[in-house]
C-alpha cells in the first residue's frame, strides 16, 4: 500500500510539473503583455516597477525557475482584474466549487447507481428502455443549455428559487445563522441540480455497463444457484463488484465535472473556480486563468489519487497487500 501511494504521488507530481510548465510557456507564447491593457490607470513607471517586481524583465530560464518555485508554494502572482493576489481569489472560490461539485458528485452517484440498478433489474422491459433513453437524453444535453432552461424555469417562469449566487450571499453578513444557511442551500439547489443531472447520466450508463459485465460472471451463477432472488443477486452480489470500478470513475469524472462547473457557474453566477476562470478570460487575466487550470489539474490529480486509494481500500484483493 505504501509503495502504491508513493508511486501515485510521484506520478501526480510529474503531472503537475508538466501542467505548470505548459502554463508557463502558454503565457509567454501568448500575444501581448499581461500588463499592456491596464494602460489608463497604470503609468509606464508603475508598469516598469511591477514588471521588475514580478521579474518579467529577467531571462526566461530564471523566470521559469521562479515560476515553478512559486507554483510549488501556491503563489500564482497578482490578479490584475481582481486587484488581489491570485491565491486569495482562489481561496475564496475553491470552497464554493468544491461544495457544488461535492453535492453534485454525491447526488449523481447515488441517483446514477439507483437508475442503473433499476435498468439492470428490469432489463428488457419497456420501463428500463425508457429510463435508458432519458439518461441518454441528459447525457446528450449541452451543459449551458440545461442550466439556462432550469434557470428560466425555476427562477423566471415559476420563480421559486433564486437565480444566482451573487445577491443574497451579499446580504449574508446581515442574516442570522439559520436563515443564512437556508438561503445558501436555496442558492445551491439549481446549480447543483444542473450539475447532478448532467453527471447522473454518465454514472448511470457506466454503472449499468459494469453491472451487465458482472452479471455473466461465474459467481453470479453461484449466487443464483444458492437460491437468491434476482433482486438480491443484483443488489448484493453484482453491485458490490460493479461498484469497485465506479469508485475510480468518481476520480475520472472530475475533469468533466470541472468542465461542466465552468458553464453551470457561469450561468448561475456561482462564484467558484469556473466563474472565476470565465471572468478572468474576459479580463485577460492570464495569471488567474493559468492558476485556475493548475488548481483544476491539482483537483483532478488529487481526486484520482483518492479514488485509487479508496479502490485499494475497498477491494479485498488489493487490501491484503
Amino acid at each position: 500500500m505504501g509503495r502504491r501511494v508513493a508511486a501515485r504521488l510521484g506520478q501526480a507530481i510529474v503531472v503537475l510539473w508538466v501542467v505548470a510548465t505548459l502554463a508557463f510557456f502558454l503565457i509567454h507564447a501568448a500575444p501581448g503583455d499581461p500588463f499592456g491593457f491596464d494602460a489608463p490607470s497604470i503609468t509606464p513607471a508603475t508598469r516598469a516597477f511591477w514588471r521588475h517586481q514580478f521579474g518579467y524583465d529577467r531571462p526566461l530560464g530564471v523566470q521559469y525557475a521562479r515560476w515553478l518555485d512559486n507554483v510549488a508554494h501556491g503563489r500564482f502572482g497578482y490578479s490584475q482584474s481582481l486587484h488581489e493576489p491570485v491565491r486569495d481569489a482562489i481561496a475564496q472560490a475553491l470552497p464554493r466549487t468544491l461544495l457544488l461539485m461535492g453535492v453534485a458528485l454525491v447526488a449523481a452517484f447515488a441517483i446514477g447507481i439507483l437508475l442503473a440498478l433499476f435498468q439492470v433489474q428490469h432489463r428488457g422491459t419497456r420501463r428500463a428502455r425508457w429510463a435508458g433513453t432519458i439518461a441518454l437524453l441528459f447525457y446528450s444535453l449541452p451543459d449551458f443549455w440545461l442550466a439556462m432552461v432550469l434557470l428560466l424555469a425555476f427562477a423566471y417562469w415559476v420563480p421559486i428559487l433564486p437565480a444566482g449566487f451573487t445577491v443574497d450571499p451579499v446580504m449574508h453578513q446581515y442574516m442570522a445563522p439559520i436563515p443564512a444557511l437556508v438561503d445558501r442551500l436555496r442558492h445551491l439547489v439549481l446549480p447543483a441540480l444542473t450539475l447532478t443531472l448532467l453527471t447522473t447520466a454518465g454514472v448511470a450508463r457506466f454503472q449499468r455497463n459494469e453491472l451487465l459485465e458482472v452479471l455473466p460472471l461465474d459467481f453470479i451463477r453461484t449466487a443464483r444457484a444458492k437460491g437468491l432472488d434476482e433482486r438480491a443477486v443484483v443488489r448484493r452480489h453484482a453491485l458490490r463488484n460493479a461498484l469497485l470500478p465506479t469508485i475510480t470513475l468518481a476520480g475520472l469524472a472530475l475533469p468533466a465535472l470541472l468542465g461542466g462547473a465552468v458553464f453551470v457557474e457561469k450561468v448561475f453566477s456561482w462564484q467558484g473556480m469556473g466563474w472565476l476562470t470565465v471572468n478572468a478570460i474576459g479580463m485577460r487575466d492570464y495569471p488567474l486563468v493559468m492558476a485556475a487550470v493548475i488548481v483544476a489539474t491539482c483537483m483532478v490529480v488529487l481526486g484520482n489519487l483518492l479514488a485509487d486509494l479508496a479502490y485499494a481500500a475497498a477491494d479485498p484483493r488489493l487490501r491484503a497487500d
Partner: protein
Amino acid sequence: MPTDGPRRRAGPGWKQLTPGARAACGVIVLFVLAAVFAPLLTRYQPWQQLDVVRLKSLPPSLAHPFGTDRFSRDVYTRVLYGARVSLAIGALAVLLSSSVGTLYGAVAGYAGGVVDTVMMRIIDTFLSVPRVLLLIAVLALWSPVPLAGLILLIGLTGWFDIARIVRAQAMALRDREFVVAARSLGARPSAIVWRHVLPNVLAPVIVAGMLAVGNVIVLEAGLSFLGIGVREPTASWGTMFQDAANQFVSSWWAVIFPGVAIVATVLALNTLGDALRDLLDPRQLPAHPGSEFQEPAHG
C-alpha cells in the same frame, strides 16, 4: 459464432439495429443532407440581413419556417448552414483526434514494454487537465482563433480516449496467430501495424468516433456560448444559440431551433454509437471508465 479469423465480422446489419438506432440514423442522415445541400434548400444566405427593420425577429411563418433572428436573418437558413459548420467541426476534429489517437494507440499497444508505459503516462498526464479549461485558456490567450485553429485545438485535445481503445485492441492483437505469423515471416512492425492492427481496430474507433462527434458538437456550442468559439457572421448552432439566448422570452424560435438541432444530433449520435457498441461487442468499450465522461460538457 466466434471466428478466429483476422477480420471482424462485416459489421452489424440494418436489421439488427433497434428502432431507436434506426431513427438516429435517419436524423443524422437528415442533418448531413441538410448540410451538404444547404444552398439548394434555401434561397437566402446565412449571413444575409433581409430587412433589419421590417423583417427582424419574425415568428415562424411560411416564408420563414423557423422565423428570423434579431438581425432579420432567416433562422432556417442559418440552421442549415449551421449544420455545415457544427458537423464539419465535429467531423474534422474527430477525424483528427481519431487519426492521432489510432496511430498513437496502435504504436503503444504494438510496441508494448517501456515505450507503451511512457506513452500511456503521457496520456494520463493530459487526461488530468480538464479539457474545457485547457481549451478555454488556450482560446482565450489567442482569441480570436480562426475556424481551422478551433478544429485543430479541439481535435488535438480529444484523442486520448481513442488512443486507449486502440492500444487495448492492439495489445490483444499482438499475440494473435495471424500477427505472429506475419511477424515470423519477417514483416516490419510498421507494416504489421498498418496491415493487421489498424484494420482490426477500425470498428471500435468508428463507434468511439461517433460518440466523440456528439461531444465535439456540444463542446463547440459551449465554447461559442462563452464567446470564444466560432465568430460572426459564420453561423454554427452554438453561436446561434448564444446570440439569441437572452431573447428566449421575446423570440423563442431563434433559440429553440438551433438548440433542438444540437440536442437532436447529439442524441442521435449517442444513440447510434451506443447501439453499434452493443452490437460490435458489449464488453469492448469503453476502454477506460472515464470515457463515459467525455467532455465538454459532460457531465
